[in-house]
């Protein structure tokens, strides 16, 4: 039986710890790709940008959501796009942005990348379904 592949864009508004929504999004995303669907991209906005913070360090018996996102995106080759304006306000920066802002440290982990909100428009245009968490 052939599966009708659907192209999904997911928008994540919640933080990796503190509320469940980013975790729900991850479970949805994993289920979608494992059932043969395609993830055009995951866009992290509002508190969602904190999912790209590599310093998140839960105890070993707890879920490390940034690492989970990174592993799933690596395995199924989809982009993790972090809104740069939401990220700067919440203290999530990559190495090059840190240099520009004269910060000595950074915290965005690969394969998360900083993007503009224009990228949301792009992901919105390319997908069959936009699902928000």
């Amino acid at each position, binding site marked *: 039986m052939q599966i009708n592949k*659907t192209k*999904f864009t997911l928008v994540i508004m919640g933080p990796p710890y503190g509320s*469940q*929504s980013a975790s*729900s999004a991850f*479970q*949805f995303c*994993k*289920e*979608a790709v494992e*059932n043969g*669907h395609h993830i055009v991209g995951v866009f992290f906005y509002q508190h969602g940008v904190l999912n790209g913070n590599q310093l998140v360090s839960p105890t070993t018996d707890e879920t490390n959501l940034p690492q989970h996102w990174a592993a799933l995106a690596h395995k199924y080759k989809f982009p993790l796009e972090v809104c740069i304006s939401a990220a700067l306000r919440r203290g999530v920066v990559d190495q090059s942005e840190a240099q520009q802002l004269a910060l000595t440290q950074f915290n965005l982990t690969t394969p998360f990348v900083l993007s503009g909100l224009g990228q949301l428009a792009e992901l919105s245009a390319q997908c*069959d*379904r*936009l*699902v*928000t*968490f």
Partner: protein
Amino acid sequence: MILHTVKTSPLQTFALADCLNYLAKDDALLLIEDGVIASYIQLDHLPLLLTLNNEGRLWVLQEDLKARAVVNNIAIACNYKGFVELTIKYKNHLAW
């Protein structure tokens, strides 16, 4: 055709009430996260929820129910795979 998801408890926020207020006749509602609490307790919205259920338009996420040990009396239970399928069946999604 919109799939609405409600993720907060009906006794914590007005998300469920507001969602039901804007739910059109082709739409469906899926209760997730703390929203699954609405599948057990007696709410003012009960008649409307029962109607939705009779029409096959009221769903509840099984994983969130079991995580909380909350009993579902009113909605069709589905798992994450069912959630993915619902977002395909209903072309649009709105999270409350």
